[in-house]
């Protein structure tokens, strides 16, 4: 049986005055009922665009979309606006990063829930309202009846996100896409929201896609994780695989930037050096090479493909480093060594390369 | 001085805009004002010889005026526009028929007083006037006008609540020939000993000097229009009087539409909106002399106040049964002249403009410097700036066309002095006079900066520029200020202490045909006052002062005209001011209107003689 949501070779481009933006460049993933997929990447990596495209929300912005998004076997990409709209907010729902700006400031929370319900169900206003209160109660908002008559600005940040979740759940969707659901919240509230999502999934049995820049967010909740970089998936595996034997230098960067108490580090916790590449003028070769401490000359020419990791099922990576080198570097990183000191691990092979390559490698390290 | 300037300002602003519109929309408007230059007036355009009698009776005339009226009380009026209503609704003792600019006829009076008919006695110090017996006031007064009503009309002019603008200058303390009992500075209203009413149809004026001729002419002004004390007296106790703002009674063929109590405010006149003249039911056409009897053809005169002058002008030219009361926009004058020539008239003798130069201080205290300036000034350029030869001619002396003494003092060419000969400005002559003034190079070599203050409205700035060019051409350093016209008078040119050297945008309009009304206030030394001064050049020449005093007392018409022409000559000889131009007044009417212009005033429509075709 095919998965509930199956994204195949999705490509999304935008025409702008500066050139064509390749926001999503051939990504594939799937998620099934009761399962949680984490999509992880920095901002600007295209992770949000892929999920907005799922709902057809990039259509209004003049995006060009190719590939397939199969939902229950139907291709969302090929659907008419109206067909897609009947699925949106109904069978596939979405919550967003900033719950304050995502709720309409001029309407009461209850009203906004009622609107969501009545967009897809012909029920009376009264019935919709009691359903709205029920939903608020479901997401753990105390005194839901009173709260339904309040405006978003009267809610705390966590309450707003709960309200957003309630709204997303209004029509018992089969898929819930949560785009950075906790980023705007403080740490304790983050944990509550994640626990709530987990709890709701167990109760309602929907598929969840959590989009985040923070691997920590998906560590507890996701069943599998896709790491996305410059519009492409660079590593894809089960949560256990990604955390235990990450294969891509970008994933390493993400992992080592999670604060941990159990290991010693010989330098300050730093995010990955450099900035994500322009999606208009993308680098030649591996897109990650300008930021990769271990990049070699041929990696500036050869574009790696997502390939299975030897010895691990359902774990894929797009990296030109040799598997054994990747294993040694990750081991070193886990011991708290700095990427700079581990660069030499990638270098024995460099002797086989030509002299200009060494020069290039130095450049990369800067 | 009567106020004509404001109408012109609005007309010009509107005209400029209309010119822009016309330039966008019309192919026939490409010609410049030069086209209209030097084209002689066609017969219909010159109101001299207009038909007064035997025309169509009845109908309503629509009158457009972008300007509002100022005072509808004849005791307060001085704005030219107010006169149009005053003379249609009230009867002065004497008046000018519309086809004469200078010959008076009896109106409320039965005859012109002369020595022969016993009207002038006591060597010209006493004037006796008999009035028509059956002239009735409109409701609610409804009784015959008596001599006491004329006496009250004049004495209330001194009442500060009325403050007739001419009382002091022509009848009271500052007059050349005051009425007996008005010369005290303390006199401020109440019965005048110099006015006696021996019976209801006789009024006798006693003057302190033999000024009968001048008095008789002055009695053509609205101040002689009768006012019933029984009605107006209580109103005149308010400050300001409400006679003329709330209530009014009429003696003329028309009246401002009123209710039975005489209240017209909000009925026959709405400030800033409209005025409505209807026939005065108490008017009797037979109460006039053989010399003058207004036909009063029209039934109604509906005056619409406000609006853009260029729009109004088009409405009149393209519409029916309408005229414009105030000055048409320049663009409209041009359009009318080119496309509707039978619907425009030009009345000469509508005023003048000159540069008032400071005779009492600064570089122009020297008469030769003034002559040099006169010679250097390009009067033709000024004529052009005013709108071209249709509306202006170069001014050559101080008595302007249409007044007694104009011909005697040189007519249009003016006195044959070298600094007057060339209206284009003559630098050779100017240099000669600069040398005579003690500047050996022919250019000014002193340190003074000439202060020039002019009005910033309409085409006045262009005039200021031409004047400034003349002055700088003579080597003067100048400082030019352009201010609002009222500010120019109130704060600069009318305040001798300010020592303004040149006021290039001042002018004068006669009050009646006697040249005294042109020359006495602006050039008579003793008329200088510290504020609100109208002798802007502070001209105070003992010989000229004496000549004016004598001329004021001459009663024979020809000798009087000659005496004032002589004064004019002295003013020219001293170059007391630098003349700019004589004004003509354009007036426009619809094609079905047989309008009649008052030639004596500034040429505006006379509602008693105008008719529909």
């Amino acid at each position, binding site marked *: 049986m095919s998965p509930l949501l199956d994204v195949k070779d999705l490509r999304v481009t935008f025409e702008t005055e500066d050139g064509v933006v390749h926001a999503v460049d051939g990504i594939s993933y799937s998620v099934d009922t009761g399962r949680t997929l984490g999509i992880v990447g920095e901002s600007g990596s295209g992770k949000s665009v892929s999920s907005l495209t799922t709902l057809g929300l990039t259509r209004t912005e003049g995006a060009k979309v190719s590939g397939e998004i199969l939902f229950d076997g139907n291709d969302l990409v090929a659907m008419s606006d109206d067909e897609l709209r009947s699925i949106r907010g109904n069978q596939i729902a979405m919550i967003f990063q900033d719950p304050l700006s995502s709720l309409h400031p001029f309407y009461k929370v209850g009203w906004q829930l009622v609107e969501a319900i009545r967009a897809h169900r012909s029920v009376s206003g009264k019935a919709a309202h009691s359903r709205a209160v029920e939903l608020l109660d479901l997401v753990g908002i105390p005194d839901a009846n009173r709260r339904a008559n309040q405006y978003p600005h009267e809610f705390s940040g966590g309450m707003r996100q709960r309200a957003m979740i309630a709204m997303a759940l209004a029509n018992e969707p089969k898929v819930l896409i949560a785009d950075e659901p906790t980023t705007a919240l403080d740490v304790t509230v983050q944990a509550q929201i994640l626990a709530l999502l987990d709890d709701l999934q167990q109760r309602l049995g929907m598929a969840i896609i959590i989009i985040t820049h923070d691997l920590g967010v998906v560590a507890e909740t996701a069943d599998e994780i896709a790491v996305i970089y410059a519009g492409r998936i660079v590593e894809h595996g089960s949560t256990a695989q990604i955390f235990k034997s990450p294969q891509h230098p970008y994933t390493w960067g993400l992992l080592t930037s999670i604060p941990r108490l159990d290991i010693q580090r010989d330098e300050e916790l730093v995010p990955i050096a450099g900035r994500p590449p322009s999606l208009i003028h993308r680098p030649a070769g591996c897109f990650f090479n300008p930021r990769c401490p271990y990049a070699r000359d041929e990696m500036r020419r050869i574009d790696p493909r997502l390939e299975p990791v030897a010895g691990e099922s359902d774990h894929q990576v797009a990296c030109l480093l040799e598997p054994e080198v990747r294993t040694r570097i990750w081991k070193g990183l886990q011991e708290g060594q700095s990427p700079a000191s581990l660069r030499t691990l990638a270098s024995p092979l460099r002797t086989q390369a030509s002299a200009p390559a060494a020069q290039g490698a130095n450049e990369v390290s800067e | 001085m009567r106020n004509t300037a404001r109408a012109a300002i609005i007309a010009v602003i509107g005209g400029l805009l209309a010119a822009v519109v016309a330039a966008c929309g019309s192919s026939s408007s490409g010609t410049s004002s030069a086209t209209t230059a030097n084209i002689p007036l066609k017969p219909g355009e010159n109101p001299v010889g207009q038909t007064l009698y035997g025309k169509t009776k009845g109908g309503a005339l629509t009158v457009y005026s972008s300007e509002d009226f100022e005072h509808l009380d004849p005791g307060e009026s*001085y704005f030219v526009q107010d006169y149009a209503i005053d003379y249609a609704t009230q009867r002065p003792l004497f008046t000018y028929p519309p086809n004469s600019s200078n010959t008076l006829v009896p109106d409320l009076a039965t005859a012109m007083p002369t020595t022969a008919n016993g009207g002038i006695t006591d060597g010209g110090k006493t004037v006796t006037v008999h009035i028509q017996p059956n002239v009735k006031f409109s409701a609610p007064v409804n009784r015959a006008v008596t001599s006491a009503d004329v006496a009250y009309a004049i004495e209330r002019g001194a009442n500060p609540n009325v403050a007739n603008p001419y009382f002091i200058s022509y009848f009271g303390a500052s007059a050349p020939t005051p009425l007996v009992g008005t010369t005290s500075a303390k006199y401020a209203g109440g019965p005048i000993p110099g006015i006696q009413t021996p019976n209801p149809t006789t009024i006798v004026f006693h003057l302190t000097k033999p000024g009968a001729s001048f008095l008789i002419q002055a009695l053509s002004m609205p101040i002689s229009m009768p006012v019933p004390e029984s009605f107006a007296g209580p109103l005149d106790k308010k400050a300001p009087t409400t006679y003329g703002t709330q209530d009014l009674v009429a003696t003329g063929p028309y009246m401002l539409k009123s209710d039975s109590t005489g209240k017209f405010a909000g009925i026959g006149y709405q400030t800033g909106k409209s005025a409505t003249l209807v026939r005065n039911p108490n008017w009797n056409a037979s109460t006039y002399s053989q010399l003058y009897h207004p036909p009063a053809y029209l039934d109604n005169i509906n005056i619409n106040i406000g609006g853009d002058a260029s729009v109004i002008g088009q409405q009149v030219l393209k519409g029916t049964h309408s005229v414009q009361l105030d000055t048409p926009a320049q663009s409209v004058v041009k359009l009318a002249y080119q496309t509707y020539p039978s619907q425009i008239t030009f009345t000469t003798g509508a005023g003048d403009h000159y540069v008032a130069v400071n005779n009492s201080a600064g570089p122009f205290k020297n008469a030769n410097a003034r002559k040099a300036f006169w010679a250097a000034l390009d009067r033709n350029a000024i004529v052009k700036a005013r709108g071209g030869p249709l509306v202006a001619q170069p001014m050559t002396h101080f008595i302007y066309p249409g007044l007694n003494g104009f011909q005697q003092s040189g007519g249009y060419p003016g006195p044959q002095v070298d600094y007057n000969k060339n209206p284009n400005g003559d630098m050779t002559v100017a240099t000669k006079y600069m040398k005579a003034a003690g500047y050996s190079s022919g250019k000014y070599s002193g340190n003074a900066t000439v202060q020039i203050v002019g009005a910033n409205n309409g085409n006045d700035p262009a005039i200021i520029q031409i004047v400034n060019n003349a002055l700088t051409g003579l080597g003067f350093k100048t400082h030019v200020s352009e201010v609002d016209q009222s500010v120019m008078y109130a704060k600069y040119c009318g305040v001798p202490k300010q020592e303004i050297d040149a006021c290039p945008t001042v002018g004068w309009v006669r009050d009646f045909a006697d040249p005294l009304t042109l020359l006495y206030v602006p050039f008579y030394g003793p008329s200088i006052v510290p504020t609100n001064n109208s002798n802007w050049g502070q001209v105070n020449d003992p010989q000229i002062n004496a000549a004016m005093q004598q001329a004021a007392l001459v009663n024979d018409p020809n000798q009087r005209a000659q005496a004032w022409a002589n004064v004019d000559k002295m003013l020219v000889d001293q170059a007391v001011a630098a003349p700019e131009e004589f004004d003509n007044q354009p007036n426009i009417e619809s094609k079905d209107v047989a309008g009649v212009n008052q030639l004596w005033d500034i040429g505006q429509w006379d509602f008693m003689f105008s008719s529909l075709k």
Partner: protein
Amino acid sequence: MTTYILRRVLWGIVLLFLVCLLTFILFNVLPSADPAQLRAGRNASPAIIAHIRHELGLDKSVLEQFWVYITNIFLHFNFGYSFYSGQSVISLIGDRLPATLSLTVGAVILWLLLGIPIGIISAVRRRTFVDRTAMGSALFFVSMPIYWLGLIVLFLFASDIGKFPILPGANSYVGITTDAGKWFTSLLLPWFVLAATQAAIYSRLLRGSLIETMSEDYIRTARAKGLPERRVVWKHGVRAAVTPVITVLALDIGALLGGAVLTETVFDIPGIGRLNYDAIIHSDFPVVQGTVLLAAMFIIVANIVVDIAYAYLDPRVRYS
């Protein structure tokens, strides 16, 4: 909320007082003609000028004049009497207000009917031919001086002087109580002229506001709910985008009620604007004060209305 409005009203009164003070100072300090001299006419004797000065109260100290003026206004609602016509300022204003009101109300309705749909369509169909055409013509009307537009419209369409005589032109205004039909037709051209510029401004304003609003997160949420686009635009977009427009609208109405001098002049409509203009020309201080105060009052009231409307429109304001 009540105390809030009360506070605003009190502030409004203080502001009106300051406006009184300011106009008073301007008239007393800036060079302008002396009203007593204007009334006295030419060559008036100093005695007469002094008398008039006394009658007009101009001989009192400046402070005293101001005190008399202020107490009359605030205690007796008496704005004084015109120096020029002697009529009470209140009656003059009352006489002129209906015309200004008629002009304003009609123009506002017209420009909203034009400006709002154009603004919305332009924003929704952004960068299309429709948008470019609408915004191009809006720019044209915005840059058109209203007096000039008035003249052009008259020379084109006025029934008496126009090339295509279809509608009543200048000085055709009659009061609504005199003849409602004529009142309506006589105001069509002035309404259009006044509305053209404003509609252009409003369509641009609303377009900008709506474009900004449509990129808000809550619009994305509304779409994600699966709402029809029409509902997203109107219920979520326009509802929020219209708030700044309403602010400007209230202030514009306030300003217009103070008199649309140019439109009133070019169409010869006897409104507050012309009253004010004439009063300035005649140095008629009480009328100038009255009209300026009226205009200030309208603007202050408009501001209060804006604040209340804001509270009504935007719940975030209501509770803060």
